[in-house]
């Protein structure tokens, strides 16, 4: 299981990459592993305003439907449309090609963990 050091994580197993005033969201390697084969991703609309902690996307595996929560608040500026045809990218490359959405960072954030803290959290 990989936990890149340049990302922040939530206790709901999302990751966020903060780059200036833009944040990129996805789900962690642990999350995709626990969900199993992902067969559908419901993406948010570009332009939608989302609060920190709000469910902004849905990932569906063979057996389960799971909400994905926003680590920080903001407005959606881009979504990963490749997931509509290849939802399995979330499994195969959760921190890269399996990203879900980008937001322009607004107000608020949930508790964010660095890689060490997230590793400890997973071990607990």
């Amino acid at each position, binding site marked *: 299981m990989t936990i890149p050091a340049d990302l922040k994580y939530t206790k709901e197993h999302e990751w966020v990459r903060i780059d200036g005033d833009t944040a990129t969201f996805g789900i962690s390697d642990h999350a995709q592993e626990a969900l*199993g084969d992902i067969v559908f991703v419901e993406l948010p609309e570009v332009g939608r305003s989302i609060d920190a902690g709000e469910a902004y996307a849905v990932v*569906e595996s*063979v057996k389960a439907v799971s909400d994905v929560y926003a680590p920080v608040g903001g407005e959606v500026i881009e979504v990963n449309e490749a997931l509509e045809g290849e939802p399995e990218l979330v499994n195969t490359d959760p921190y890269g090609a399996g990203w879900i959405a980008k937001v322009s960072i607004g107000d608020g954030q949930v508790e964010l963990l660095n890689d060490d803290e997230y590793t400890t959290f997973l071990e607990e």
Partner: protein
Amino acid sequence: MTNLLKTPLFDAHVALGGKMVPFAGFEMPVQYKSGALKEYTFVREGGAGLFDITHMGQVRVTGSGALAFLQFVTTNDVSKLAEGQVHYSALLNDSGTFIDDITTYKISDTEYYLCINAANRHKDVAHLQAQAEHFDVCVVDESDDTTLLALQGTAAQAALQPLVDADLESIGYYKFAQVQVNGTAGIVSRTGYTGEDGFEIYIPNSMASEVWSQLLENGAEPIGLAARDMLRTEMGYALYGHEISDAVTPVEARLMWITKLDKGDFIGKQAVVDRKADGPKQRLIALKLTGRGIPREHYQVFVDGEPSGEITSGMHSPMAGGVALAYVKPEHAQTGDLSVEIRGKQVAAERTTLPFVRSNVRR
């Protein structure tokens, strides 16, 4: 909560990376290391998928009254079974609704073998034993001693043949043979729940590990519950607790083909006759989403914008897309614009025919 049961293959599942989950009172593998989709694909694309379905129950019925007994407690016409033949059937209660769906194996005129659902085992056995008092029969629950494996897919026969003393080629679809499996008596039937050619193999628990390992050595791959459910849903096969239950009769569930009203009296018959005359309260349909999304169990089905029923089994089929079985009001079985409510939105759907993907069983 009582302790979950383990099949004799529990350790083998864990060693293969099986993700164990509670299922019908047992701890069973929902998937192995490669994941449900790869397992599904292996079975559909020419492999030999190996399933531990030991959670299912087996009941042996013996005695001079065996035929009369089974004619009375099951829906299908047991008098039509030849020795070595299997059929799909059901147990109904007096109100015509399902106690269980089963398969019946005819060993001889005085000996039959039933395969029943795990979750219904104790209910079924109690029912059968109570009814047996009126017949010259003996009903024995052999579930605890029996391991049941399914080997499904085009390569199944080649993987199984080296272990058995009978020529599998001579066993036709829904036929079985009492064979030696590695020198121990067992039953092999050309049956399954996947829509692929393949076998179900009944052996004593003492043989479970050995047979399991040898089938894997012969090229079989282990398949978990998630892929099993995908495979059966694509065929439109009913699953107790979903399409059938003690709330529906064979009329609603489209199972009149296993309910023979012309064979004489049986439990639930009058209620089924009445329901047929009055018309069903709901109808099972097969649907396919034309919009994006995955139709899932309990999602509401709408017709012409009004609620009509709900999904009993639904999935994302790699071959057919979003497909589901659903109960709708009888007047909506054939006509009206269908949609499925997914997270508050109406997603368009259309009626389709079963199976959702082509069956490869050997007819």
